[in-house]
């Protein structure tokens, strides 16, 4: 199948065979997924479609009790399972490609958790404007994956120059004893 036909086939698949949530997933991830991976994912969904005559995968739907530990509004929106290797690759890209990365609930403009908000406030305090914020509430894979990746059980998680700094308690203590400022000056994040 040549590229043009393949692309048309993919578009048709996206349009007709996948349910809206799955379509959203592919539109969102097309930029970061390799074409081969995308094809593999599409084939999986096509096989599911042809096997049950439904463009649905039950795993993709929000269930009432999927996340007992958070209100429905705050539950991760994406339920499509991503491969752990892909996820870790994505984390590495974010962490290596940005001087500062904050995995948080919500985003820096609108934090959705007091602990995340605290770190955002510390960033503002030191005048750090340019940093990557990753909303873990937007994707269940990211929320659970980053905990494994960092070997750290809670969110938020802060990385500076590829180094894992810690969560809210650590940032708070470092901010109070002056070591956070030392770190960001030493790493060239801010000038003293």
């Amino acid at each position: 199948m040549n590229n043009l036909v393949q692309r048309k086939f993919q578009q048709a698949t996206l349009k007709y065979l996948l349910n809206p949530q799955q379509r959203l997933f592919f539109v969102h991830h097309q930029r970061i997924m390799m074409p081969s991976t995308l094809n593999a994912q599409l084939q999986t969904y096509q096989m599911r479609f042809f096997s049950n005559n439904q463009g649905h995968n039950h795993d993709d739907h929000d269930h009432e009790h999927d996340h007992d530990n958070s209100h429905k509004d705050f539950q991760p929106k994406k339920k499509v399972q991503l491969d752990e290797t892909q996820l870790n690759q994505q984390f590495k890209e974010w962490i290596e490609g940005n001087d500062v990365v904050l995995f948080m609930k919500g985003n820096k403009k609108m934090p959705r958790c007091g602990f995340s908000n605290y770190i955002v406030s510390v960033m503002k305090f030191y005048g750090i404007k340019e940093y990557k914020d990753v909303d873990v509430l937007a994707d269940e894979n990211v929320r659970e994956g980053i905990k494994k990746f960092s070997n750290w059980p809670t969110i938020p998680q802060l990385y500076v120059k590829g180094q894992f700094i810690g969560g809210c308690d650590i940032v708070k203590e470092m901010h109070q004893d002056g070591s956070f400022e030392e770190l960001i000056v030493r790493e060239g994040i801010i000038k003293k």
Partner: protein
Amino acid sequence: MDQSNNSRGPIYLAIEKKLTEVFNPTHLEIVDESHKHAGHHAMKEHSRQGETHFQVTVVSDEFENKPLIDRHRAVNECLAEEIAAGVHALSIKAKTQKQWIKQNEQIQT
């Protein structure tokens, strides 16, 4: 050893026991803050007994010459079972005896 909370549920007691065994602390404070989060979804459904939010202060010589992140990791690993079982938030202060004395001196002055 200080325990600044009167209501001691099973998770509270498990945290107390494990931290005492692992770190042999000179000072241990465990505060169950779950009541402050009573409206949260986690409180209503995730944990029947309602022990979901804790604050722990562990003062131990085990933390000597260990960076902050390693101290916190050690506490997290010690309480991994409780975290998995429904402790929704765990706030940690991990200090050496010297740091603790110094901090208290600063508060007094």
